[in-house]
């Protein structure tokens, strides 16, 4: 459950955050607040996964901050016994950016939803990805507005019948992974609420990554969009739909002992990726997954294998590359300025041109 060693230089996502030898358990991260999501909500599974995962990082609990926006998932910080802020709709990445820039000793996590991150907060999301601030963004995607009781969201499939779209929604949905890669995110991954093992693995890699890590988590809303991801959970269906990514391994899936009936191959003419039967194309033709490619077009091509029908869904880490983070660089500028020039306030106020009046 350690992060993949991509053999790249640089510092880890948690460097500078104080650690502790004190034994922590999932319980250490449970606050005294009663959890108030609807029975059966996918958020419970994610909360449990995060609470179990956090102790493995060995961080001082007081140096962990969860920041959220507005929506069902954004209640998340109240349930974590860390520092937490439930901010306003869509703005969590902005708030977290100011916090991360000024406090390198904190591990800052953003919890957001498909409406919060991709509708009202779309601008802040793409800009935090572009800047590569050291934030971990968990995007709970249930393809519906839950807290406002069931309107379609920017990830709802076209034609969605909801309270606000009785004749079907008209908009084309976002693919959050494609969007993040378009913004040149340095770390992009996808997981499913019901797959604790993979979710935990992805969280570990996100935590170890220095820069903005976007983790899309498919999450079931049992009240307004129940079963949205059911086909990805049913035995027999999930094997031929989920395409799990493993760095350095051929992309192959479909169940069975031989590694899977299907594989992903590159169309040499267009560069796009396709799902083919391994028996037809041969093992050697399968694409070997490399999350460390600096050109995001490969990861983008991978992301296009997922569409809203969920015929296929790629999970795991699409992209994990090292590039400078905004917060590290901003602090470096301040350090550099301090070294170059002493903080002499009187001299600043005096400026260059003064005159003196004597009585």
């Amino acid at each position, binding site marked *: 459950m350690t992060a993949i060693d991509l053999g790249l230089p640089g510092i880890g996502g948690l460097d500078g955050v104080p650690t502790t030898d004190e034994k922590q358990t999932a319980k250490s991260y449970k606050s005294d607040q009663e959890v108030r999501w609807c029975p059966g909500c996918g958020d419970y599974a994610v909360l449990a996964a995060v609470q179990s995962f956090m102790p493995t990082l060995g961080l001082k609990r007081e140096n962990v901050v969860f920041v959220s926006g507005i929506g069902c998932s954004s209640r998340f910080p109240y349930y974590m016994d860390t520092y937490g802020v439930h901010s306003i709709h869509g703005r969590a990445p902005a708030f977290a950016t100011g916090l991360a820039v000024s406090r390198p000793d*904190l591990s800052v996590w953003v919890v957001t939803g498909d409406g919060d991150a991709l509708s009202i907060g779309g601008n802040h999301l793409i800009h935090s990805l572009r800047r590569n601030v050291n934030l971990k963004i968990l995007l709970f995607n249930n393809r519906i507005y839950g807290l406002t009781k069931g309107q379609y969201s920017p990830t709802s499939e076209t034609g969605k019948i909801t309270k606000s779209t009785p004749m079907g929604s008209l908009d084309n949905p976002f693919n959050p992974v494609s969007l993040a890669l378009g913004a040149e995110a340095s770390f992009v991954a996808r997981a499913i609420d019901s797959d604790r093992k993979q979710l935990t693995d992805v969280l570990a890699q996100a935590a170890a990554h220095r820069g903005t890590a976007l983790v899309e988590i498919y999450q079931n809303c049992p009240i307004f969009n129940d079963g949205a991801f059911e086909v990805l959970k049913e035995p027999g269906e999930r094997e031929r739909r989920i395409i799990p990514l493993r760095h350095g391994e051929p992309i192959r899936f479909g169940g069975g002992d031989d590694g899977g009936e299907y594989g992903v191959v590159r169309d040499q003419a267009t560069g796009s990726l396709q799902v083919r039967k391994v028996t037809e194309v041969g093992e050697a033709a399968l694409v070997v997954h490399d999350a460390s490619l600096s050109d995001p077009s490969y990861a983008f091509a991978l992301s296009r294998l997922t569409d809203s029908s969920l015929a296929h869904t790629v999970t795991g880490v699409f992209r994990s590359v090292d590039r400078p983070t905004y917060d590290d660089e901003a602090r470096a500028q301040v350090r550099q300025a301090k070294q170059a020039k002493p903080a002499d306030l009187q001299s600043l106020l005096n400026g260059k041109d003064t005159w003196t009046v004597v009585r």
Partner: protein
Amino acid sequence: MSVDLGNDASSGDTEVRKLDRVVIRFAGDSGDGMQLTGDRFTSEAAAFGNDLATQPNFPAEIRAPQGTLPGVSSFQLHFADYDILTPGDRPDVLVAMNPAALKANVADLAAGGILIVNTDEFTKRNLTKVGYEANPLEGDSLSQYQVHEVAMATLTQGALAETGLGKKDAERCKNMFALGLLSWMYHRPTEGTERFLREKFAKKPDLAEANILAFRSGWNYGETTEAFAVTYEVAPAKLAAGTYRQITGNTALAYGIVAAGQQSKLPVVLGTYPITPASDILHELSKHKNFGVTTFQAEDEIAGIGAALGAAYGGALGITTTSGPGIALKSETIGLAVMTELPLIVIDVQRGGPSTGLPTKTEQADLLQAMFGRNGEAPVPIVAPCSPADCFGVVLEATRIALTYRTPVMILSDGAIANGSEPWLIPDISELPDISVTFATEPNAPDGSSEFWPYLRDPDTLARPWAVPGTAGLEHRIGGLEKADGKGSISYDPDNHDKMVRLRAAKIAGITVPDVVVDDPSGEASVLAIGWGSTFGPIGAAARRVRAKGMKVATAHLRHLNPLPGNLGDVLRRYERVVIPEMNLGQLAMILRATYLVDAISYTKVAGLPFKAEELQGVFTDIIEGGGAR
């Protein structure tokens, strides 16, 4: 004063007249460098020891079509041998670099005033462009002024003929020619300008020398031609003893922010988005990272304040700067800061509104937005500087309030203050207030348990503890949802909400602010003129004029708009008539009438320009003589 400019000409025949004050306006095309020219003349006046006040006026377009009325840019400077309060109502001297500048400004020139015109631009084409059917220099339409026609472009090109500079580049130095001529007329020191030009063009020494040459030619032109029979002297002003510098409002705000960081011992994080007329605060602050200042140019106004609030949550001094349209976008986050009770400084450099309005013009119509422009009962303290130099102290005062009471504080500056400049008595930093804060470090539950209650208030200030992440044992969650009194967990309890709304209101109402001071030299005035923000200068100047005529008027100025000074009600009730001049439709008047039930007279103007002292003199006189406001 003698200036050795390396020529032998003598000005012995020129009469020297002594003046107590002069108002000069430089006007030209946006590309003519009028702001720079005005700025340099200001520095010369400052270096000489005059009191001064300036007022730039420029279009929102970076380069409107050349030679047109919308493209006119001007810079007005008032300098004197005594303490002045405004940039002056109307110029005594107008320098017009083209027909558009003449047309846009000549009506403001005082009768008998000096008009210096760059004749090279008075071509048929340029005249037609601004609707002059005949050349105004040829008829008698300007006969009430002392007109000096100077072919500035030709003379500058001539002077630079041997520098090897192209004709066009040489022509562009004509603003320095104008500056040289005016510097000669008013016996200004020149060393500063020459040094400035050498520094400005350090990487292009030939341009530096060309500009200096143009500047000297302007000076020599005045000295050697007989066109100018009179020069003028304005003696240094008798200001309070101390060391001064010239400062604009935006620079003073930036320095105030740096000082607030130092005096509070907190790192400063500015989260902002460029907007006229506030961007210069960002530009200035970004140069002072050595003071532990981080400047973050965000993707939008909302992210700017969001980052500032996030930094404040982490224990930094969070600041955001903007103008009215930006405040509209930041409102929801200001509300979050009210709810989470975190310190935050929000600077609104007001401009003409509504909507995009008049980006480069001044107005003070955001007062009610600052007071009430949020959903719910969301009180925010408001402090307003009255002049460019006052901005420095206002930031320290706003920071004191924000840190002591854990609240967002709004600073309302405006376009006239932001870009205007005046002498500033530089404070001794050892005398600046200590505004350092202490973070919570221990659990505080009244029941003696090891819990931390984030909303347990200080009984005196009603402020809640500021517990920053990284403090063991104080882990807590805050946010925009209503909090249970004390414990701070989410609460939808009706009585609790009522209590919390009142507690938040009481906290702001209970902020200690100094009493308002009344200026009434006679002690017998029955009329009080009260204002806020940049109307301080015109109100004070008008009061002086009224008093000089033997009438009595009291003045008072509000630096704190929320909460209002404790003695204000008594002060207002002490006068028979109260008049409130404002550059809006009566926003302070509405607040004072509602708060104190005083029948105040509201005098308003929303022209994008400051009040003239003459105008307010008339208003005050009418009221003193028994009339109402016009």
